[in-house]
């Protein structure tokens, strides 16, 4: 008989939803997440289009439901090392990185982090803040436990410190902890490894990294978020001043054969959301969205754009800006673009124009996570030219990969927003159920 267990790789919203559905089907789920907490990119977002629900508020219950499910075995800070076998009967090796924290003892009180002398860039906040070497990525993390990041910890670098150990009342710090290797037998695999933002510095004309007041979409999400590093204060990097005019540049690295040929699918909408949020925070603030096509194709999306225009001072300018320069004195970015101007006769000309704003948000391309490439190669999983996991037949079975028994959902297989990722996650669960035919009842109170 096939194994009644499933491996889910990646604990973003797609992996979480797939795990919950599979667990509710009575299957045993091993959810492997590379970072210390599940949640994925959605945990980093402030609100979500098109209804502006607070992202963490709707995600947190899902994370808890998932981790608390009797049939889900959460393996965070872990990675899949090897996969052998075939549909119905895979052998998987999972490597759990040492956290140097005894999960059974740590209460998540945070005292250790309070005292830890080593400050490092905080990846959850897109480097806009510092965290300690012993840390929890965000307050609602699941599991709500600490991790010592050995690469930055003074003790591992210099052999001295262990302040955290002295501080911890629960004796949860364990510098002797070793890597843990787990061998699993599973009947099916669901891959949900999501995306990384593309580094917009590749597009020299937009000056990312050089122009202080040019930031990315994800950085903006952290800035505008009430629980972010600035508590929602939209201070711009150069001087901390709140801008009154901001510009969004769409398709930065997307839809460009020199970079990423595809459309990242969500950035038109997240820019619209971010313009709305900015104006909600600062009612006089104006946004200018420079776009190629405004791809607002989902339920309630057009209506969202209408609201952005009518109620939130958002202007949409159809143009792909050629470059961004800076006004040295004010630090203001100047966006250079071409615009259409009409004469009274109804004829029009395109001409170069510029707009000085105070902050620019570069809506960068989103790229599938590269990490699964090695696993993919080992398994013979096919990928498309852009690195998205290829599916066997888009029309017939859009969540089946090229290898039987292995399914893919969410952003790792095609650019998509949260609702579509949730749909695909449940779809993958159905395909697994067709393969493994679970018949056990879930525990009564699950």
């Amino acid at each position, binding site marked *: 008989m096939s194994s009644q267990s499933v491996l889910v790789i990646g604990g973003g919203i797609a992996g979480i939803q797939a795990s919950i559905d599979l667990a509710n089907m009575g299957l045993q789920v091993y959810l492997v997440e590379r970072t210390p907490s599940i949640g994925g990119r959605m945990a980093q977002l402030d609100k*979500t289009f098109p209804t502006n629900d607070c992202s963490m508020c709707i995600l947190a219950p899902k994370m*808890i439901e998932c981790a608390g499910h009797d049939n889900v075995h959460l393996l965070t800070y872990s990675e899949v090392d090897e996969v052998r076998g075939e549909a119905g009967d895979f052998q998987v090796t999972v490597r759990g990185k040492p956290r140097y924290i005894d999960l059974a003892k740590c209460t998540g009180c945070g005292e250790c982090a309070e005292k830890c002398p080593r400050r490092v860039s905080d990846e959850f906040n897109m480097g806009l803040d510092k965290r300690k070497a012993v840390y929890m990525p965000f307050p609602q993390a699941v599991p709500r436990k600490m991790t010592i990041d050995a690469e930055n910890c003074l003790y591992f670098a210099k052999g001295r410190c262990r302040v955290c150990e002295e501080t911890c009342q629960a004796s949860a710090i364990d510098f002797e902890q070793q890597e843990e290797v787990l061998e699993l037998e599973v009947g099916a695999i669901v891959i949900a490894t999501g995306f990384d933002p593309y580094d917009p510095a590749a597009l020299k004309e937009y000056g990312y990294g050089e122009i202080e007041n040019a930031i990315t979409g994800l950085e903006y999400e952290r800035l505008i978020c009430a629980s972010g590093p600035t508590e929602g204060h939209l201070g711009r990097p150069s001087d901390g001043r709140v801008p009154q005019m901001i510009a969004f540049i769409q398709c930065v690295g997307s839809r460009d054969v020199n970079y990423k040929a595809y459309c990242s699918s969500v950035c038109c909408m997240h820019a619209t959301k971010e313009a709305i949020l900015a104006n909600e925070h600062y009612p006089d603030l104006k946004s200018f969205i420079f776009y190629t096509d405004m791809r607002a194709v989902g339920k309630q999306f*057009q209506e969202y754009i209408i609201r952005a225009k009518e109620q939130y001072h958002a202007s949409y300018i159809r143009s792909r800006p050629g470059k961004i320069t800076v006004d040295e004195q004010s630090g203001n970015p100047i966006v250079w673009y071409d615009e259409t101007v009409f004469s009274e006769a109804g004829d*029009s000309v395109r001409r170069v124009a510029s707009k000085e704003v105070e902050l620019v948000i570069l809506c960068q391309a989103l790229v599938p996570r590269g990490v699964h490439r090695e696993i993919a190669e080992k398994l013979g999983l096919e990928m498309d030219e852009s690195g998205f996991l290829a599916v066997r037949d888009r*029309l017939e079975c*859009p*969540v089946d990969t090229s290898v039987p028994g292995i399914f893919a959902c969410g952003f790792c297989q095609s650019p998509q927003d949260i*609702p579509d990722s949730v749909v695909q996650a449940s*779809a993958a669960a159905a395909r697994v159920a*067709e393969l493994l035919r679970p018949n056990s009842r879930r525990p009564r109170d699950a």
Partner: protein
Amino acid sequence: MPRTRVGVFVCHCGNNIAGVVRVPEVVEDARNLPNVVYVEDSLYACSEEGLSSIKEQIAKQNLSRVVVASCTPRTHEPLFKDACEEAGLNRYLFEFVNIREHCSWVHRHDPARATEKAKELVRMGVAKARYLEPQEEFESEVFPAALVVGGGVAGMTAALSLANQGIQVYVVEREGQLGGLVREVRTLFPTEQDTGELLGPLIEQVRSHPQITVYLGSEVENIEGFIGDFDVAVATDGQVRELKMGTVIVATGAKEFKPLGMYGYSGLPNVVTQLEFEKSFKRGADLPPNVVMINCVGARVPERTYCGRLCCSTAIKNAIWLKEQDPDAKVSVLHRDVMAYGVDIEEFYRGAMELGIRFLRYDVQNPPEVLGEKRAEGVKVHHQLMGKQIILPADLVVLTTPLVPREDSERLSKMMKVPVGTEGFFLEAHLKLRPIEFSTDGIYVCGSARYPSSIPESVSQAYAAAAKAAIPIRDGSVRVEAITVFCDERTCSACGNCVEVCPFGAVELQEGRFGRTASVNVTQCRGCGCCVAACRSGAMQQRGFDDRQLLSMIGALADEMVSVGGR
């Protein structure tokens, strides 16, 4: 009787609540309320830490009631109820107070009054909590079969997936054959394969699967009941079959909008829609050399604001098809934005441009104009790069129109008691996290019935719906929330109002100890409360919302109002 011991947990929700509502004041206020023995403020009550604190305090303070004042019951109430239960407290001894949506969000600009309101809501919650009673949930059985309404690509895929999971499925299709809208579609984006290649095998699998029964030329006449126990009446040629179902999937699709009177459609013979173009022009036939397509006809306009999502792709597909049949054909697509989202469709779009198909953007304020008296002869449009009006010669004008809801979706929605949204498509429980579920348990939606969706999207949704619809069936039973009603037979006047209003047929008049009175079948009651409102004798009482509980809330508020008035 042991004294009721109420614990109150007030949540900051990070800054979501505490940014507006002065949480410490709410905490202090709650300390003085009757029966309150413990109050705590929590940064995130729903975090693991917050939940374990609730559990800890239930034990430590010997709490007999728990009140959480936080974000929203919609996603969070079950979480807190579970925590109570895990700590040994009956889950019905929990009361939720919504101080985020009802205070900090709606009164963002008035922190002082938002704080006052939060205090009042907490007082009301505590007042009610004192009268809460433990309830037992019961299990109700789930009949092991699923109904799929609609036999298009979505319905067929859902049926196959369920059947392949070992579940008995019944498909009800109104037309004489399976396939739905795509039967009329010639080739399919993004693969450009012939529709038959997809549809043929799919229909064959559905027809031959031993666990699928298909009723063609049939309609669902009526559905009654609830998750696990739906009574369905299916009419075929005037004959009615009664079926029992555990869960239901709605896959009734949508139809192409017919743009009567727009751009010469229905007057000029050579102005057609995309679907008509696919139907009437076949490979090898005489094809028109000059074709102009106009996108967003009847979409993204004030009377129909939404975007049809897939119709741009249809236009690209048909433009490519024409160019491939006749490389010399001149094909132009007039559009407002090209919705070629993702990897495949963007590539498809780029391919179309490389083939020489012209994409010209028009402004909705200045739309194209179809020229010609008896036939369309050209299309006038403002060319944005050339900066002036041009006339494109046209032997055929193809109008790209969106999918619109089917006429009877309103009727279905009423019959199944599931909502439709402003566009007329079925409305899911939560736009982001429950995209294919209805808020009514046991009914799911997929495909274009929910919103215009391409086949890959419809198929994904169909699988997702199959996953959800299979779970209760595999479980064999569901737990029913104990918010049902009961009739106090001594006060019931047997007027029968409750029987009239109950949408679920749960109330009957019966002879009993006190003569003829209303009697409730709790397995059928969904706790909607209609009968309680309709009862003129105050005999109908709802568990968790009984008169004492609700009046105590009003009392708590009224006391407050009196004291404010007296100040």
